[in-house]
């Protein structure tokens, strides 16, 4: 009897054990399922992802995630556009030059804390670094064809930019506005710049054609590296009410013959912001002694590469600076310092030191 009872209890214990094990297994399976989500692969386009199509400076149509949240921008002027557009946080890597150029770094570090702390990665020709970041788009100079090809071969979206004239400056802004989802801000900036420019052109229009001063735009690095026609240097002279003394030369940037400069005998010289040259270099050079520009001390240097940047809408300030330098009486009411500060505040929302 005792043996029979013991066997029955043993059977029940085994049954309970089996039930408990089953429950535990079920519970474990449940937690396993509860801990799982539907898998996705990083970088793979989801069905809900919106895209935008833009035509870049190469004439290539590029389809980019909209808005692009991970932008690698390898040109400083593009980076400035993105800062102006308010797309700072969408930039994940920049060009090396922004860090190595003292002036560019000084200003960029006042706009972007990551640049100041050097935590925003800089790309220096290493394509693998870019691929590893899995960016939505890489913004790069259109001339860097080899780099573009390598990136595109690796499936990275690339927008090639070229800014040969001031129309291109607005096109660049428009493209970057579209990919970053800041189209309205891009339109606002373009409108502001064109209004500022109109104030200058209205006054320039009143200057008698015979009184317009001839000028040469110096790109550097030597005194004879000049801008021919169809160049930004040529445009800036025209917009400021002057005429390019070297407009017979078709080259965008050429090395002039000194004898031709004597023949042109320009009234003024406009220098890009150069490291090794300043107006005094011209005044001290005996070869330039009989040129009207040096005789009358009419050699002007664009004061700063950041706020005179000819590859962004800040070129408007350069036009104002030059117009005021060439025709101080016509532009007597233009406070150049005030205009510069207002422009920078509007574009970046920063009071620069």
């Amino acid at each position, binding site marked *: 009897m005792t043996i029979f009872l013991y066997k029955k209890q043993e059977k029940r214990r085994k049954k309970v054990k089996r039930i408990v094990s089953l429950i535990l297994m079920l519970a474990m399976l449940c937690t396993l399922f509860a801990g799982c989500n539907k898998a996705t692969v990083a970088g793979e386009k989801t069905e809900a992802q919106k895209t935008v199509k833009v035509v870049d400076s190469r004439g290539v149509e590029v389809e980019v995630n909209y808005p692009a949240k991970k932008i690698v921008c390898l040109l400083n002027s593009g980076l400035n556009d993105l800062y102006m557009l308010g797309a700072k946080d969408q930039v994940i890597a920049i060009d090396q*030059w922004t860090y190595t150029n003292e002036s560019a770094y000084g200003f960029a570090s006042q706009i972007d804390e990551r640049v100041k702390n050097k935590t925003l990665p800089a790309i220096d020709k290493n394509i693998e670094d870019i691929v590893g970041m899995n960016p939505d788009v890489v913004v790069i100079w259109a001339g860097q064809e080899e780099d573009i090809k390598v990136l595109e071969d690796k499936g990275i979206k690339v927008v090639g930019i070229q800014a040969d004239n001031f129309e291109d400056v607005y096109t660049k802004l428009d493209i970057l506005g579209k990919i970053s989802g800041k189209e309205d801000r891009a339109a606002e900036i373009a409108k502001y710049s064109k209004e500022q420019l109109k104030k200058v052109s209205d006054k320039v229009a009143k200057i008698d054609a015979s009184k317009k001063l001839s000028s040469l735009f110096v790109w*550097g*690095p*030597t005194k*004879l*590296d000049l801008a021919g026609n169809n160049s930004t240097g040529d445009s800036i002279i025209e917009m400021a009410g002057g005429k390019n003394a070297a407009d*017979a*030369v078709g*080259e965008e940037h*050429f*090395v*002039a*013959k*000194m*004898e*031709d400069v*004597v*023949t042109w*005998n320009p009234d003024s010289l406009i220098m890009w912001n*150069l*490291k*090794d040259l300043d107006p005094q270099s011209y005044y001290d*050079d*005996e*070869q330039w*002694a*009989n040129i009207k520009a040096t005789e009358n001390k009419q050699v002007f240097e664009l004061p700063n590469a950041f706020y005179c940047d000819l590859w962004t809408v800040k070129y408007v300030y350069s036009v104002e600076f030059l117009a005021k330098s060439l025709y101080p009486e016509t532009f007597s009411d233009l406070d150049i310092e005030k205009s510069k500060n207002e422009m920078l505040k509007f574009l970046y929302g920063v009071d620069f030191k």
Partner: protein
Amino acid sequence: MREFFKKLILIFPIVIFFVSLGVGSYSIPFDQMIDIILYKLSGYTIFNEQLSAQSINVLLNIRLPRVALGLLVGGALAVSGTAFQAVMRNPLVEPYTLGLSSGAAFGAALAMAVVTIPVQICAFVFAGLSVGISYLAASKHGETSVISLVLSGVVVASVFTAMLSILQISIDPLQLQGLIYWLMGSLHTASWAKLLAVLPYLIVGYTIIYFFRWKLNILSLGEKDAGSLGVNPQKYKLLFIGAATLLASAAVSVTGIISLVGLMIPHMLRMLFGPDNTKLIPLSFCLGASYLAIVDMISRNLLTYEIPIGIFTTFLGAPYFIFLIRKTREGGWN
């Protein structure tokens, strides 16, 4: 006939000097040119009572230093080539093929972009280094074959070109643009200041080679024969290599790389007048000077913008170099 050609070559630089002075994009009529020179020398004129300040500026401050620099640099490169060829007993060597130009260009670029020591001195140091390495690398048991010297020159030039590339990628893009243009060889930045900066080096180099030029004939015989004739070959080899390096590096430091002048000119003269270096040295100077002044005249008048002169000398010199390679037998110096 040879005497006539000799005299013609000796007076050629004077003729080219005046022709070059008269040609340029800024028009200065011949009578005005004469008057400007007379006015500067004596205060009087013959043809014109009034001279324009601009014409004076163009002629005296722009054209004159450029023409003079072109003549001096052309002469220096040709004399340097003649001396190298005689000392090394090799018809294919000249500053460019020895790797000297690349070494000097690296030295000059280094001084321009990074270190603050005189460009000429830095160019000379690296030029000397490149010639030394080329020569030592090609020498075996006191003999140097024609082709191995040219090949070691190619290797040395490649090394200095690579070092120059490192320099190029590490400097400012705008500075780089100027450096690249300068490397192509150009006289467009010629000025009195540049001319005066390089003149002492050219005078020293040329004087040494000119006064000891007869010893070049003895060195051309080879070290054993030179020694038996009472000339210390090592001492004079070093002297000539030093002087030729000084001439070529000084030229490179002001104009960049102007290639193959030192190859064409001595060879042409040797074909005309034989291997006597006492005649070849002054003739090389005159023909080299005239050649470069003519090439510069073309380069500054052909288009509306400046074309680096080194491009022309390479185009003209390269076929000549190929012709010489095909003509020269291994080890041949006859």
